[in-house]
């Protein structure tokens, strides 16, 4: 009796989830505005904010902690874009490091203003206070001063910027897949 009930529950859950996934995937691919490489994306990224795109690039890093972030590099590897896992992705598989992937997602813009940096400093101070004097290690102090240097540099850049803020772009990824090995070889050879 219990076995039958569990079987019915498992089958219905499976059917329901498959049906749901299919509908979502169709919606995702229909909405894509452009299919781009990382290089192409970075050229026009300001015009693609909040738009759904498909981008192809080499995964140079996947976050070791939660697997919620990865970095896609361009042909010029000094240029890259951060990709964050959207609601549909629990974590990026660490094994995709070194693979070329196609990521579908929405371009997001973070506006870095002086107010944003003030909040950042306040948060850092809060963390430091919460740790207390005894909780602060030498490397924490080093990290703090490096962060402060970066913030001061950003303030300088904001001061010299046209809009009064800096834009940091990323992709909120809904789905991704590894590109065929052949394409991967081409990508590698071209680097």
């Amino acid at each position, binding site marked *: 009796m219990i076995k039958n009930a569990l079987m019915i529950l498992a089958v219905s859950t499976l059917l329901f989830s498959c049906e749901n996934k299919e509908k979502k995937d169709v919606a995702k691919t229909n909405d894509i505005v452009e299919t781009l490489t990382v290089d192409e994306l970075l050229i026009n990224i300001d015009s693609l904010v909040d738009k759904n795109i498909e981008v192809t690039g080499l995964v140079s890093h996947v976050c*070791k902690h939660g697997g919620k972030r990865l970095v896609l590099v361009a042909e010029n590897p000094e240029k890259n874009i951060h990709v964050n896992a959207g609601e549909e992705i629990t974590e990026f598989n660490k*094994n995709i490091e*070194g693979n070329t992937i196609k990521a579908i997602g929405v371009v997001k813009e973070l506006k870095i203003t002086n107010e944003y940096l003030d909040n950042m400093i306040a948060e850092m101070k809060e963390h430091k206070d919460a740790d207390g004097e005894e909780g602060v290690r030498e490397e924490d102090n080093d990290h703090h001063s490096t962060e402060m240097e970066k913030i001061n540099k950003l303030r300088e850049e904001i001061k010299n910027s046209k809009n009064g803020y800096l834009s940091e772009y990323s992709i909120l990824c809904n789905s991704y897949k590894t590109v065929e090995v052949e394409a991967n070889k081409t990508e590698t050879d071209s680097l």
Partner: protein
Amino acid sequence: MKLRKLNRIIHRDLGYIFFGLTIIYALSGIALNHLNNWNPNYIIHSKEFKINNKYNLTNIDKQIAVDITNEIAPNEGFKNFYYPSKEVLKIFIKNGNIIINTNTRIALLETSKRRPIFHQFNYLHYNPRKWWTIISDTFAIALMILAISGLFIIKGKKGITGRGAWLTTIGIFVPILFLLIYYWKIF
């Protein structure tokens, strides 16, 4: 049925049903509390090597990358490589990567593999899917019912009117004390 008996039944059965989830959330909770001290999701090994002088590292091809991989990490398959900057070469291998400083020729081999049990438990703790949100919300509500019903399991001196009252007060006072010290900064 008496109210106290119903309370015991609810407490007992919820305890049985949510035993697994309690262990999952408790273990992964401890793991995630100590993110600064360890990586609860992956076991990471690092080792330094010096690259053989026979390789010209400034502009390698795939074959050289494969040869370097075979020398440093013979059990890991070669995947790919690129130059993040002029001085750095990164070779991707099956379970990690090799980062080489092309000037000093020092290579850092880093391999990682999923930490058994913790990776799976943390996956659930990070609230992976909408359906899991429903399950974990149900668990959270059940925990509240378990806590409240737990207060009324027994009567008498050791119940909520005696010893239980003292212990419950201590349990409530501890988080309040922390809030007073760190949040409201009263002291």
